[in-house]
């Protein structure tokens, strides 16, 4: 059981991690990063699956079904949209210069 101060430490360390990771991000990546972090909390799907796995009454099953449905949408949609955005980031230097020529 994670409890009391142990939980507090966990929240604190995770919060610092999130803060640190983002603070050095160039502005050009803000939108993809927002979209990417949107995917990361799609891990909520796992929690919803466990909750539905414990459901017994029809009401619980209905709420759990909605929870899993929404969580899966968060994960799948967040992934596709982020991947599509990041796919487009290319450099004109290094291998990019060939692609540039090919595009014209």
């Amino acid at each position: 059981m994670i409890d009391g101060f142990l939980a507090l430490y966990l929240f604190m360390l995770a919060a610092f991690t999130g803060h640190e990771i983002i603070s050095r991000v160039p502005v050009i990546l803000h939108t993809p990063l927002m979209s990417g972090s949107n995917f990361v909390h799609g891990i909520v799907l796992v929690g919803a699956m466990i909750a539905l796995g414990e459901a017994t009454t029809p009401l619980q099953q209905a709420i759990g079904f909605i929870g899993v449905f929404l969580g899966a949408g968060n994960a799948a949609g967040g992934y596709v949209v982020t991947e599509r955005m990041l796919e487009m980031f290319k450099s004109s230097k290094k291998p990019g210069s060939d692609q540039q020529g090919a595009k014209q």
Partner: protein
Amino acid sequence: MTSAQLISVLIQASYFSAAVLLIMGIKRMSSPVTARSGIQWAGVGVLIAVIATFFHSEVPGQVLIANAALIFIAIAISTMLAWYSGKKVAMTDMPQMVALYNGMGGGSAAAIGAMALLAAAMGEHALSRQQSVLAVVGALIGSVSFTGSLIAFMKLQGWMDKTFRFTGQQAVNGLCFLGAAVLGAMVVWHLQTNMIVLFFAAALLFGILMTLPIGGADMPVVISLYNAFTGLAVGFEGYVQQNVALIIAGTVVGAAGTLLTRLMAKAMNRSISNVLFSNFGGGGASAAEIKGSMKPIDADDAASLLYLAEKIIIVPGYGMAVAQAQHKIWELSQQLIKRDKDVKFAIHPVAGRMPGHMNVLLAEAGVPYDLIADMDDINPEFPNCDVAIVIGANDVVNPVAKTDKSSPIYGMPILDVAKAKQVIVIKRGKGTGFAGIENALFYQDNCRMLYADGQEAANKLIAGLKAVDAGGGH
């Protein structure tokens, strides 16, 4: 070790690796070079955790989780819908899709909270006081993120009027929040089913009320804020379920999202409380009268200016994206680069609809990211710039933000286009920008207006350049 214990250890190990992959994924997403692999790492992390969870069985002798079929069906339908919509959506509509998917995550967290509280109310599963407090807080935040994000989605999608205001609105919203908070406290003290239902109704309603009065210009900040909300909600519900992977991933996103929201608000010269509790330009202070006139230029003359220039900075705004002109503008830039011009794109932090949105739109058109410069890097270069081309941007290049204290955009950081030797503004008509104020730049002596649609203007400029090449000039 029994096989049941082994499976339990394997599941825990998969959650651990998911947490590691998610954090490293975000880390990699923070640099353009590694960004694409970042989302893939994070994707593998979630996939591993989801597959492992199918074997999370609490009944001895049963391999799969209870209700496995139900879970599978929900995931299958939702994934198909989300995958299809995410693949199909146009890049300009990306912000509302992020809002939609984010709202779904908030709703999912709220559903987890609801189930934990309901199970406790029926005496199936005891919750510690800490757990029920966090279940309630997480459910409140998640519910607000859920309905709030849906409203944001509908507004950006154009399904709903941009603003919805009435007198005493803030008092009504405040009462609704108070109601949700009191009901939440009562749920913690007496776990009763009808109290839980009332609490969720109030929380969901508050998300709607809170988002209704916020205008389209502020939506990016709001979406980012709700993204942080969902993260926190997931972290709290993770604590309720005692699932460390959820706690870590949720809290990391909560913290990162909060920072990102503050960065965005700062770039727009707005505080977060300003966005949530007041109206844009609500003061209605009339800006000082601007003297002079707008001086038009035709495309051939503009092309000659470009032909003679050495250093050219292009300032794109959302108007360019709406006109779908980014491909043509990149074609024009390539023509200029071919003629040995130094071409750069200057991006204001809030160009487009979210910070970085313009970069995505340019990237889609094939513009390499090292030609794209942030505001702080490019501003010192404007005085040395021969021609600055402004296309579809308005408020973010308005020098009034620096000079006129009565202006609603006073204090907003801007691109110093006004300092360029020559400015060409491509614009369809004489209208004002998002904030509805006159742009002093357009009246400056070094500024010429090229009245045309973005695509048409770029085509004419390319043709003009080729004409000069041919020696004919004009």
